[in-house]
Structure formats: structure tokens, C-alpha cells
């Protein structure tokens, strides 16, 4: 595309023509670095909560109930006098594990379904597989987002493990659709054609050429999806379908704080902030990786 004079500001042709394809390899910018630092902090919270919050997240102290943020309790205390900061720090482990496992279930299923569908095309079996998987995905898409997760929980009953599985299943169709189109695109690429012409066996072409190139974006998608999974898992807990209350898990804390919204805003604001910081960091980092990937690969 040639340069056009008098474009609206902010719409330079390089940006417009390259918004999808050729962006140069960029180092992670300041926003991405902050996101990475925040995620590292969350990992520290998850692995060694005692470092940041030495108190016991389950120790009840009724006389301290509903205290606002102070030096002793930077995020205030809840209805049983437990420090919200302590519980947010100790909750990182549970919340991040649920998010990670759900994302792994979602991407795992998505990759299997997507590869199966994407490899179809030629041959009767292949075409039938593609059509079957695509139809199945269409059905799953008809129960979007939390709806599928809720239907799953209707059968399994509430709890942290069912909620994790439900969120994983609910995210799988999205991954599957993207993997399918990736596999299909890579299969038609000149590179794969060349390998086939050179007499490589189909299995080898699949493992050595198609999969590595088709699955590279999944890492980025999983980073973006982690935030979504944490948000959905916390929503399920908030609705009373995830981890049961005494556990220091962000969604469960938010569910407890709901009753006291008018008297103790800190019980809602801080655990929610933890969810938002996690999801936003994952999103920002995922976007950064995506931008890098677009410039670097292909």
C-alpha cells in the first residue's frame, strides 16, 4: 500500500496495512514488563504465601471483625476478623491453580479437536471427521461461555474440581476453532507442499512441520485464556458453585463479601482487584506475545 496524504491522525498506512501481519519483532514494552512482574508476584504468593502474609488465613478473631484497612490489616478484615490481605495472598494458590488447570483442560481438548478437524479435508474419513468435529463445536458454541459451565455443574454438583472442569470444557470450543483453522492453513502452505513433494512421509510432515507451526499460537492463546479462566472460575465461586466459603479462594471471598457490601467494601474490592490484576496481566502479556509472534514467525 502506498502512502496516502492527509490521513486521519493515528491511521498511518504502515499500521493499517500491517495490523494483522508484518509487525517487527518488538522487545516487551514497559506495560508488558509490569504485567510480567505482577504475574511473578502472584506466583510468589501462590508458592510461598507465608513470605508476604505470615498470619493464618483461617484463624478467626471475632473482636477484629469488619475493621477497615489499617497498618495491621492493609486490606481490612472480614466478618470473622480474618485479614483480607492474608486471605488474598493465601488464596492466590487456589485461584491460580484453578485457572491454570482449567486452561490446560481447555487448550488440551481444543488442540485435540482442532487438529482432528483441521487434518480432515481430503478423503472420506478426513472430511467426515472435519464435518463431525465442526458440527460438535457448533453445538458447544450454542451454549456460550458460563452457560456451558453451568450446565456441566448441574450434573456434577458444585465444588472447586467440578468448577475447574466446567471452565475448561467451556473454553475448549474457542481454542478448537482457532487450532482447526491454523492446522488447515499450515497444511496448505508451500512449506508443507515442498516437504510432501520431497517425499516426506505424511506422519513425519505432520509432526515436524504442521504441528509446531500450527500450535505456536496456542501458547499465546493460553496466556490470554488464563485471564478469562480465572475470571470465569471466580464468577462460579461467587455464584456459590465453586470452592466452598471458608477456603481462602478469591471467588469464595467475594461471595462472602457480597452480603456485607454496604458495611465492608474492602471485602469485595480487594479480592476482586486480585482477580482483575491477574486477568489483566495475563491479557496484556498475551497481547505482547501475540504482537511479537506476528513479527517473528512466518
Amino acid at each position, binding site marked *: *500500500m502506498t502512502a*496516502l*496524504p*492527509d*490521513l*486521519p*491522525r*493515528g*491511521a*498511518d*498506512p504502515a*499500521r*493499517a*496495512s500491517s*495490523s494483522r501481519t508484518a509487525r517487527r519483532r518488538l522487545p516487551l514494552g514497559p506495560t508488558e514488563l509490569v504485567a510480567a512482574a505482577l504475574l511473578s508476584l502472584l506466583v510468589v504468593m501462590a508458592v510461598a504465601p507465608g513470605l508476604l502474609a505470615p498470619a493464618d488465613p483461617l484463624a478467626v478473631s471475632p473482636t477484629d471483625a469488619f475493621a477497615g484497612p489499617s497498618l495491621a490489616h492493609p486490606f481490612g478484615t472480614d466478618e470473622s476478623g480474618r485479614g483480607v490481605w492474608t486471605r488474598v495472598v493465601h488464596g492466590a494458590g487456589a485461584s491460580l491453580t484453578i485457572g491454570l488447570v482449567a486452561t490446560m483442560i481447555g487448550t488440551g481438548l481444543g488442540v485435540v479437536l482442532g487438529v482432528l478437524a483441521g487434518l480432515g479435508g481430503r478423503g472420506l474419513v478426513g472430511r467426515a471427521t472435519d464435518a463431525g468435529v465442526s*458440527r*460438535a463445536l*457448533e*453445538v458447544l*458454541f*450454542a*451454549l*456460550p*461461555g*458460563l*452457560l456451558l459451565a*453451568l*450446565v456441566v*455443574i*448441574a*450434573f*456434577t*454438583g*458444585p465444588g472447586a474440581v467440578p468448577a475447574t472442569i466446567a471452565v475448561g470444557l467451556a473454553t475448549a470450543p474457542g481454542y478448537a476453532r482457532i487450532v482447526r483453522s491454523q492446522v488447515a492453513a499450515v497444511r496448505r502452505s508451500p512449506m508443507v507442499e515442498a516437504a510432501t513433494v520431497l517425499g516426506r512421509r505424511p506422519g513425519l510432515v505432520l509432526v515436524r512441520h504442521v504441528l509446531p507451526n500450527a500450535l505456536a499460537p496456542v501458547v499465546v492463546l493460553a496466556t*490470554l485464556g488464563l*485471564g*478469562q479462566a480465572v*475470571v470465569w472460575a*471466580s*464468577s462460579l465461586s*461467587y*455464584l*456459590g*458453585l465453586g470452592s466452598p466459603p471458608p477456603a481462602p479462594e478469591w471467588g469464595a471471598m*467475594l461471595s462472602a463479601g*457480597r452480603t456485607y*457490601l*454496604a458495611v465492608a*467494601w474492602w471485602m*469485595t*474490592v480487594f479480592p*476482586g482487584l486480585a*482477580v*482483575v490484576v491477574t*486477568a*489483566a496481566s495475563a*491479557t*496484556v502479556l498475551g497481547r505482547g506475545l501475540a504482537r511479537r509472534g506476528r513479527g517473528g514467525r512466518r
Partner: protein
Amino acid sequence: MRPGRWRRAGRWLVGRLLGALFVLWAVATLIFFAIRLVPGDPAEAILGGPGSQASAEALDSVRRQYGLDQPLFVQYLAQLGRLATGDLGTSYSLRTDVGRLLLDQLPGTIGLALLALVVAWSIAIVTAWWATLGGRIASAVSSGLEVVASAVPHFWLASLLILVFSTRLGLLPPVSTGTPAGLVLPVVTLAIPVAGFLGQVTRDSLLDAAATPFALSARARGEGPSGLFVRHLLRHAALPGLALSGWAFGSLLSGAVVVESVFARPGLGRTLLGAVTLRDIPLVTGVALVSALAYVVVVALGDLAERAIDPRGRAA
């Protein structure tokens, strides 16, 4: 209107109808067999779950009444037959007709979702337009909205809005009563995340469209910035957003589950939540079927709107 066009439209409609029927059949089948896969006695579930300590006679009579003593395949065909005639069965927990119950709940949720959709599109288009005018504030606001959209749970957004506008300022009711004022917070809660995503794709395609030769030639003919936007660019900018209408619907509906619960608003989402908590399978099936149908309709409408706006798709 030439006959070829009618034939194409007819084929499109038939394809959509068959697709919708397939989706409904698959959802009903999946749920039917999922119940049998999960440990637990369906008869016990009808009587209120394992905690109900139902007697053997009561269980037997429920089994007979609901046909649970029949072979699985007979039960399955009977269930499909009932669904085909529009009979969604009786709710375990509320003991009422599921179809009637859902008809009562549907308008509230659809109204809420439609209002939220209108608000979301308005926010998306305004921020996208603002972003094309340039300026650091505009792009900061729109990229901030994008992060908010992807990272903020509906229930937390709702809680913050209640804290600020109800508890602190006392401007709006925290509970969504029948009054218009009660609708403001739920609609805003639902609209903001959708607006973030729509705004993002709209802005990208708007910037792409602004850089094309046709935009240049329109400017050369003396079109001002707002005329260019309304008459030429908006068409292009809206397309990717419309392609996302299925996604937007999903976000609105799963948001409605949370929002209706937070604002104590009757509706489809809250019905589903109650049904899931009580493991009321006929009600869950009913909500799943209704929302799957709604999804298929929304995607078809989005497709129609896309065709109406983009003549390129029609020629093919």
C-alpha cells in the same frame, strides 16, 4: 428481484433451519445422556436429591410416573417426542411447566440484553470514532476499555457500581425493580465488557478503512470527516463487530446469569442458576434449549445484517 436471488435466500433459510434443528437435537441428546452418565438416581433427584431420604415406594412411583423404568432408548425417544411437540416437561423444584416458566422469564432477559447491546454498540462506535480523530487520551481510553472488558468479572463491576451509585451517592437503586432507574446499573454492567471487545475490533477496521483509496477519493470529492465516517467508514467498521454477534450474545447471556443474581432481577439467567443449584434437570434442559435456539437466531440475524451492509458477500 430475480428468481435466482429468491432461490439463494430460500437455500440460506433452509440451511439455517436445519442447522438450528441439529443444534437443538444435539443439546437435548447430550443432556439426556449426561444425566445417565452421572452417578446418582434420577428418581432421587426428582424427589429432592440424596438428602431427601425418599422411601422405596416413593422412588418406585416416581420411576413409573416419569417412565424411568422403561429401557433407556424408549425413554430417549419419548423425551425427543415430547420436546418435538414443545413440551419441556415439569420442573423438579418448582413443580410447574418449564415452557410456561421460561416464557415468563424470557422477556426480562431479552430486554436487558438488547438494551445492553445498544449501549455497547454506542460506546464502541463513539470510542472507535474518537480514536480515529487521534489523540493520546482517546487511544488510552479505548485500550483501557479493552483490558477492562477482558479482565473485569461482571459481578465485580456490578458490586463496584452498586458501591458508588447506590451506597455512596444514593442515585440508583441497588436492586433492579420494575422502574427504569433500576435498569441502569444492570445494563451498564452488561454493556461495558461487550463494548470493550466491539470497540477494539471496530477501531481496528475503522483505521484500516480510513487508510483505503476509497476513503481518499471520498475526501477528494469534498466529503468532510463526519460525512466520511457516517456514509463510508461506518459500514466497514461495523462488519467485524457483527461477525462477533454470536460471541456478544454469549457474553450478554452469561453476564445475565451474574447480573440478574447480583441485582435480584428475575430472568432466564437467574432461573438457570437456581436450576443448577437445585440440579433441576428439566429446567436446565429447558434453559439450555431456549438459549441455544436464541444463539442460532442471533447468529443468523448477525449474518443477515452483515449481508445487508456488505454487498460483496451477496454477489457470491
